[in-house]
């Protein structure tokens, strides 16, 4: 009896770490969860791109996860999607949707939604585009025709605790030629914004397309460090 109890206790103890792992502790940031699964693509062209560049996509997800920890690449949002507004054809853009943990800020809250979108554009589009275009093979692939970056953040407004939160969203579509011109320094951030298609939403409501008249300089992504944040062993950030 005692011996069975002892064996049972030993087994329970040995399973504890596995229980913690399987309960999600080890999976919360798994890059695989960020990628659109192959069986969800609606075209063979997109599926083939996803298969071919799976490692690059995982590396991108992992890089953002560790190195820009206040961003959350949303589940299944990373992949070769087709921007709907492009109409006919199967134009595939490397796409990603991220949620931004935005600090509460009266200054930010006072901005119009358009100006908030412009601020987010200035802060995140260039750093994310650089990461998305890091693979030369991917950017040189004729099947990849551009990049889509969707940024969303919690709308700062007074609301009851029971109210559902509202997100504001900006979607940026950049054709590949413009992206490569920008990344090579041939065009300015302002010129990139002129050539990009930038769309805004307040919650589920579509607003006007965003035309940026000026791009503020913002080096937040490269300079901000979360206090006491510790990278996992073996992880390095460029």
């Amino acid at each position, binding site marked *: 009896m005692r011996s069975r109890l*002892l064996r049972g*206790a030993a087994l329970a103890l040995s399973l504890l770490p596995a229980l913690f792992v399987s309960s999600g502790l080890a999976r919360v940031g798994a890059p695989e969860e960020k990628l659109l699964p192959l069986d969800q693509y609606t075209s063979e062209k997109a599926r083939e791109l996803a298969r071919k560049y799976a490692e690059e996509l995982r590396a991108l997800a992992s890089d953002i996860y560790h190195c820009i920890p206040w961003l959350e690449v949303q589940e299944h949002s990373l992949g070769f999607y087709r921007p709907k507004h492009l109409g006919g054809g199967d134009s595939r853009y490397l796409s990603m949707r991220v949620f931004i943990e935005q600090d509460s800020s009266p200054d930010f809250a006072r901005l119009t939604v358009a100006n908030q979108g412009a601020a987010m554009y200035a802060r995140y589009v260039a750093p994310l585009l650089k990461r998305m275009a890091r693979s030369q093979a991917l950017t040189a692939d004729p099947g990849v025709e551009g990049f889509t970056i969707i940024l969303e953040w919690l709308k700062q407004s007074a609301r009851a605790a029971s109210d559902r939160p509202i997100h504001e969203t900006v979607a940026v579509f950049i054709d590949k030629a413009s992206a490569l011109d920008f990344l090579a320094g041939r065009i300015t951030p302002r010129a990139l914004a002129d050539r990009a298609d930038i769309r805004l939403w307040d919650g589920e409501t*579509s607003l006007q397309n965003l035309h940026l008249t000026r791009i503020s300089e913002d080096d937040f992504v490269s300079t901000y460090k979360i206090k006491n944040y510790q990278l996992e062993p073996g992880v390095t950030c460029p």
Partner: protein
Amino acid sequence: MQTGRLRSLVIVAAALLAGACASGEEWATWKDHPSHFASGEHLAFSLRNREGSPTRVTREDIALARSQGWWGKPITVSTEQILEK
């Protein structure tokens, strides 16, 4: 002898479970104060070493905070409205 080992195992298991419960309690405290997550240093939260020693924040801490469904299901444009798979 066997009783002693059994007792030791039970004590270790209880200690581990107590650790997990303490963590759950911390989360409950956080949920009572959601503004912590959206204000100033909201990502530098004190999940560990709250008293005395410096706070350490790992990426897992941040991801777990989000996985708790902190803000509830948001009202936002769906990806399907913007992109096609």
